[in-house]
């Protein structure tokens, strides 16, 4: 082959980040080796796009003001006991019932009343940009916090981190693989050479093709190739070829190997109307995603894994006029995995009395969601607090260690 991984990595250096650690700390400008990964824990970041209603997912039924705010959304479940008691104060949305065994074994946790620093405009798109940039203000960085984290750790390679789909959180100067289970290429060596030749005049296309070629060469899991014979027998039901479940399964295969970080999105949380049905469906999907990760990672790797699901903002404390909720501020972060110290809801509860609400309408965030993310990063990878507060999440005060990991 005309190309090798080294020049594909060298080309990805061209994409520069504005913040972050010195690239000299990474092996990109020295010969690359493909030995062991730089640390052992696994991290899966799931971005829940659309604004997940934390108050409906993890319901503070112990708060005396909650019931009045959500008469149409949760009253029926409270009356029937369809939702699930977590700790006497919070109850879990019934659609997450499949995750209760994880809760009981300490593999599922929640951080409540958190948000990014984003306030007031309540735009999905700005909110997601800020969530993924990890900065204090919108537009302060072009790269994502997960990428800057990679820049701070020595020994990061092209497949240490995988983005499945477009994930700004992983974009930046550090090498990151981006792949999709349907993307295996099947072309003859001659055609491949000609293709490389055709791309040579355009650096961006050339670098992208080189990455595609090397990833395609390794993507040999017959489970993901619908045309290959002999599906792997251990996972009996055939997974969808598209959507979050396919991504979760693909991420798990990678994380069983040298990959340490995977990031993908689960969309559809913007429940302005008919929230009972719509949120329930999304949560069922999310539960399946987490269980797929658990099953496909296997007990040993799952034991070293932290799954972090975060969203751009929570939703209004009061349900709106059409059995839904509008864009809000404080929300919840979900944690799963054997590395998580689950079975508890973290976070300081601000209360739901009108005067306690942010702007008299939203759950008041009592902590920066970046702080929770920073403590998790610190627990899974060799990072200093100084780097986390200055480079990964510039300007963040991580505060006390909440002990999110076991």
């Amino acid at each position, binding site marked *: 082959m005309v190309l090798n991984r080294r020049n594909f990595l060298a080309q990805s250096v061209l994409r520069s980040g504005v913040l972050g650690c010195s690239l000299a700390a990474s092996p990109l400008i020295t010969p690359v080796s493909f030995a062991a990964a730089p640390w052992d824990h696994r991290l899966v970041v799931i971005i829940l796009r659309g604004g997940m209603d934390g108050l409906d997912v993890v319901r503070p039924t112990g708060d005396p003001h909650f019931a009045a705010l959500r008469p149409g959304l949760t009253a029926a479940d409270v009356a029937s006991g369809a939702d699930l008691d977590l700790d006497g104060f919070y109850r879990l949305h019934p659609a997450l019932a499949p995750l209760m065994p994880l809760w009981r074994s300490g593999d599922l946790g929640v951080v409540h009343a958190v948000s990014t620093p984003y306030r007031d405009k309540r735009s999905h798109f700005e909110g997601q940009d800020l969530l993924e940039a990890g900065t204090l203000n919108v537009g302060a960085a072009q790269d994502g916090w997960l990428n800057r984290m990679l820049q701070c750790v020595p020994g990061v390679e092209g497949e240490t981190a995988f983005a499945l789909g477009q994930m700004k959180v992983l974009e930046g100067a550090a090498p990151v693989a981006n792949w999709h289970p349907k993307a295996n290429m099947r072309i003859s060596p001659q055609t491949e050479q000609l293709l490389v030749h055709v791309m040579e005049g355009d650096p961006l*296309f050339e670098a992208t093709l080189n990455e595609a070629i090397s990833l395609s060469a390794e993507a040999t899991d017959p489970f993901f190739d619908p045309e290959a014979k002999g599906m792997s027998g251990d996972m009996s039901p055939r997974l969808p070829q598209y959507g979050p479940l396919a991504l979760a399964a693909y991420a798990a295969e990678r994380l069983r190997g040298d990959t340490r970080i995977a990031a993908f999105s689960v969309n559809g949380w913007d429940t302005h109307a008919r929230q009972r049905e719509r949120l329930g469906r999304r949560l069922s999907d999310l539960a399946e995603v987490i269980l797929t990760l658990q099953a496909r990672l296997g007990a040993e790797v799952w034991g070293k894994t932290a799954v972090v699901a975060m969203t751009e903002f929570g939703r209004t404390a009061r349900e*709106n006029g059409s059995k839904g909720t509008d864009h809000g501020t404080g929300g919840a972060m979900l944690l799963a995995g054997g590395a998580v110290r689950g079975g508890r809801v973290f976070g300081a509860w601000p209360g739901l009395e009108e005067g306690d609400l942010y702007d008299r309408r939203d759950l008041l965030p009592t902590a920066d969601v970046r702080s929770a993310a920073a403590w998790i990063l610190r627990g899974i990878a060799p990072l200093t607090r100084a780097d986390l507060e200055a480079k990964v999440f510039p300007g963040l005060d991580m505060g006390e260690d909440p002990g999110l990991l076991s």
Partner: protein
Amino acid sequence: MYSLLTFSTALAEIRFGYGLSPRTAAPVSVADMLARLSGPDLNARAFPIPDLKAAGALSAERRRLLRAQKAQAGQAGYEAATAAVNAQLKQMNQTRRRWAGQVMLRRIAGQDGFRERLVAFWGDHFTALGKNQALRHWATPYVQTDLRPLVTGRFADLLTAAVMHPLMLHYLDQSRSVGPDSPAAQQLGLGLNENLAREVLELHTLGVDGPYAQQDVRQLAALFTGLGFRVKGRRVFQPNRAQPGAEVVLGQSYGPEPGLAPIRAALEDLARHPATARHLARKLAVHFISDTPPEPLITALETAYLDHDTALFPVYEALLQHPDAWGAQLRNVKPPLDFITSALRALDVGAADLSRLGDKGLRQLFDLPLRALGQTWERPDGPDGWPEEDTAWLTPPGLAIRLRWAMAAPVRLIDQLPDPSSFADTALGPFVEGRLRFAAAAAETRKDGIGLVLMSPAFNRR
């Protein structure tokens, strides 16, 4: 005029249309492009798509059949009623696919590429989708029949038509929003929903950096109450759902009598707002020119917009007459759908070729690849439509899936594949580089050669 010095026929088709075609005559000047745009809409005539009335009739029929099915529950007629529901659903899906084919034909066989790109641009700017089976097929008539004639008119009129369209009222939950102090609020137990009002300010008009606050969102939402639609496809205004009294949006009072007039007045003012001019000018420049468009170009579009009372034709004129529009370097990466569309155009795929493929072939060659490429037909993730930035589309898996399509699809689309070298000239005109010429000639098979042309950076940019 200086712009005529930099005009290029190939760029007119590649940058401002759906690419070069061996069949249709490319524009010969900016004046020619503008004349086509101001002339009769030949593509719509050649490949008709009905309006929302026809779409609404199908929806109403579905509702009727579902009711009939429900009435038969547990009775002898249930099976037959269910079969009728399923048969009609199949018919609706076929209709939707046929309309998708008409949209594709407008783009691949038509002579007015710039109009088609503008229709797609504004359809995306005002993204609206049917969120259930009964309304899913509305998206095509919404853009292609209802918004289409307005894309050369005033933005204020386009905005009003889009925001008050039944599909938009459905998509952004407006039809469920009720004034908190209206008679209906008590009877129905419903209230305000902010969704449409927020997106009108953030996406459709001022832009997220625009000078509005949460209070403006609430007030606009209250002003919109009363807007609703019938499943037959008709918009209605229901005064008993409207919030009584006046609403103040951006310091301007609308009302106090609820109705369509104050809503139209507010949309008119929002359309004329300088922040809207800026937002739209930038978006157009990004869409047609580059992810980082030159500032003078944005200013030119903005000025044309404000000087002409939101009329869009002068904005397009300013775009096409600006030297920055004709930079010889191809920049923006085509989104997957436009990549496939321009491939069909270059391959001279016609109506007969598409119908020969049948449902299964269309699924294999369009629906599934578009889905894998992240651009499922008429299903963007949110009301912000499809991403514009190159990095959203130029990814390793994206390129690999384009490659699979480029190698496999052409041979199934047309009877006889052209010679790869001449196909390169057909598809790219003056943009065929030496490397591509070599590769097209050196390919092992005709199929591979065509695939290489389609995969070239020049073919994937515009």
